[in-house]
């Protein structure tokens, strides 16, 4: 068998009349990992889809070049053949699920290959208790774990993963990196798109850095080629009494999904003017549920909530936030009738979305959609911001702007509650709350 797992010569791939990746050449051998990184919108996911033969399925998608994965060309063979060779974890995990229950989703991949599945292995991935659970009730982190489980256990020599740990808690990330390391040691290979390549340093991977669809570095893993974690941004000295003027009070909140045990048990939380509160905790412990209750989307089984001023929630999947068909339309709606073009331009500049203002939302990347949703929310000027994983899919360059915007909002007297696993955000929290076993503890 050849030592080459993936060999690609991408002359040009992308979307007709839109973004493209050009002149990317790469080779990954068995027993090797390649990390693809770069700024949000630099073409990482487009490249990964090109390698998988999926770009042709996207609206206006095209590919010119040649790709060989495990000795076969994914553009020319039967889908079943390529599915045997690979494991794929897409960037937005909720779009990667076909099964209506955890067990069914896990076993579908086996069924395609004519194999019997062993669902008891789900416990290895922290999903043992959720075998019969419906998949549309899972958190993004749990879905990501489920995709790992089916991709790894079904076999396949080459993994293609797009931000595979972005919604997963710290412990889960470590476990996953160990699993991938074992896969590499056993002669497999992996191509991983990640904004945080340092996570994968223990694998001594190859590194490919993209910028505007072009290769700017290709070679051994070098820390100096990796975008540095964000700096800058500080709290306003004029907000010494932040948190005193309360905008949101939730008292003794209990919540159960129909037919299930309580996910929140007597949770109390307050958010005051100028305060930034971080909510963290293992996957599936109710962080997103809490935000939806605070927003008023879910009604608690017990307990009271008091809100002062306008509250907004940006969900894990930012596509659900939008009202406009293009980013510009969305920003204009958010800005209101007394808004001017200059203000929209300034916000677009701040969030790095000026070049995609006219783009239909369906043709934007996951990171671009998230930035656009954040820009829209800040432009609309709410009093309480509830952000669910606001940094998912955002690189170290753009996250600095997002952090600055959150700080600016807080400094101007807004309250911000963030549910996230992203360590890059931890430093801006005034208060960190950990939710575990339905109990919330803040410090």
């Amino acid at each position, binding site marked *: 068998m050849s030592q080459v797992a993936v060999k690609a010569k991408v002359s040009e791939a992308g979307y007709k009349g839109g973004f493209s990746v050009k002149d990317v050449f790469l080779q990954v051998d068995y027993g090797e990992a390649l990390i693809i990184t770069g700024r949000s919108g630099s073409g990482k996911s487009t490249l990964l*889809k090109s390698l998988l033969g*999926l770009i042709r*399925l*996207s*609206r206006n998608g095209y590919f010119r070049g040649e790709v060989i994965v495990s000795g076969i060309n994914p553009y020319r063979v*039967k*889908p*079943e053949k*390529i*599915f045997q060779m*690979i494991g*794929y974890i*897409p960037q*937005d995990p909720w*779009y*990667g*699920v*076909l*099964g*209506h*229950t955890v*067990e*069914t989703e896990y*076993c*579908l*991949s*086996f*069924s*395609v*290959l*004519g*194999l*019997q*599945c062993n*669902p008891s292995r789900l416990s290895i991935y922290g999903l043992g208790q959720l075998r*019969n*659970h*419906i*998949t*549309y009730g899972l958190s993004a982190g749990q879905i990501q774990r489920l995709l790992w489980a089916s991709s790894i256990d079904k076999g396949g020599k080459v993994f293609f993963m797009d931000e595979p740990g972005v919604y997963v808690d710290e412990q889960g990330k470590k476990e996953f990196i160990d699993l991938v390391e074992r896969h590499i040691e056993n002669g497999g290979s992996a191509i991983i798109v990640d904004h945080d390549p340092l996570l994968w340093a223990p694998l001594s991977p190859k590194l490919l850095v993209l910028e505007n669809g072009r290769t700017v570095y290709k070679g051994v893993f070098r820390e100096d080629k990796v975008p540095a974690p964000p700096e800058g941004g500080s709290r306003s000295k004029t907000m010494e009494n932040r948190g005193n003027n309360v905008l949101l009070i939730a008292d003794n909140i209990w919540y159960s999904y*129909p*037919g299930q045990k309580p996910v929140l048990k007597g949770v109390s939380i307050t958010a005051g003017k100028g305060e930034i509160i971080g909510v963290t905790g293992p996957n599936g412990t109710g962080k997103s549920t809490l935000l*939806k209750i605070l*927003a008023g*989307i879910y009604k608690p089984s017990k307990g009271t909530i008091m809100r002062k001023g*306008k*509250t*907004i*929630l940006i*969900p894990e*999947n930012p*596509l*659900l*936030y*939008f*009202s*406009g*068909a293009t980013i510009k339309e969305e920003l204009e709606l958010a800005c209101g009738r007394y808004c001017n073009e200059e203000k929209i331009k300034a916000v677009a500049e701040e969030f790095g979305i000026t070049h995609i203002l006219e783009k239909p*939302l*369906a043709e934007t990347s996951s990171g671009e959609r998230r930035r656009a949703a954040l820009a829209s929310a800040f432009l609309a000027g709410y009093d309480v911001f509830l952000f669910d994983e606001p940094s998912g899919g955002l690189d170290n360059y753009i996250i600095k702007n997002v952090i600055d915007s959150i700080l600016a909002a807080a400094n101007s007297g807004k309250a911000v509650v963030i549910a996230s696993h992203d360590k890059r955000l931890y430093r801006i929290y005034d208060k960190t709350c950990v939710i575990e076993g339905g109990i919330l503890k803040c410090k």
Partner: protein
Amino acid sequence: MQIIGALVGLIYRSLFMSGETGLKTVPSVLKITLIILSALTYIPFYSEPYIPVLILSIIGLLGLNRWWVGASLALSSIPGIWYGLTAYLFGFLGFAAHISPIDALMIYFRTTYISFLVLFAGSIISPVQLSNFLIKIGLGDKAITPIILWRTMPAGLHDMMESLAIGTLKGEKAWKRLGPATASMIEYSQFVWENNYYRLESPLKALLPYSSEKKYIALVLASILIETSILVLYVLGIV
């Protein structure tokens, strides 16, 4: 906006809230028998249409859950109220024969029962059983269809509910939000197709695991026995 959200929530709770548990795990032959007998039970209780509603509620309570009973009754009451009320008002206004409020109530119960039974049938379908059946008869390439339907319909509804709720937070009017909410469902199908292309385009070969739970089989057998007895007694002219 809240009314649309509530309706979507009822459909979601009625049809898609549970996985492969409860009555879904019962063998298909028994489930089909139960549905046919439940449909026939309508005949002996034509003058007391609330009785079959009660029987089906009890089966639903024991075999599904109380949220299913609540949501399905609320949902099936919508056509019931519509037919009962319009029949009464049309009679009252002289457009049709006059009926009493009690007659209108009977129309409500009869219509509600039919809708309730349809929801019941929909709620106990097991996509896994359907899928396995298709694999067994050599239609492995179509076997993913029931599974994906039971995933995408509730996921789409779930996203739609969330999108509508966010629209409320943004202070938008319901009609303005329906466009983006529907668009998000269309985007969903495109992204799911892209990301699962290799699985969707490959036939299923091995049967998917499922296990029957004895207590639910016993419940269905008991229900079949009771409904058969009622029908036999009716045919014999005893009830």
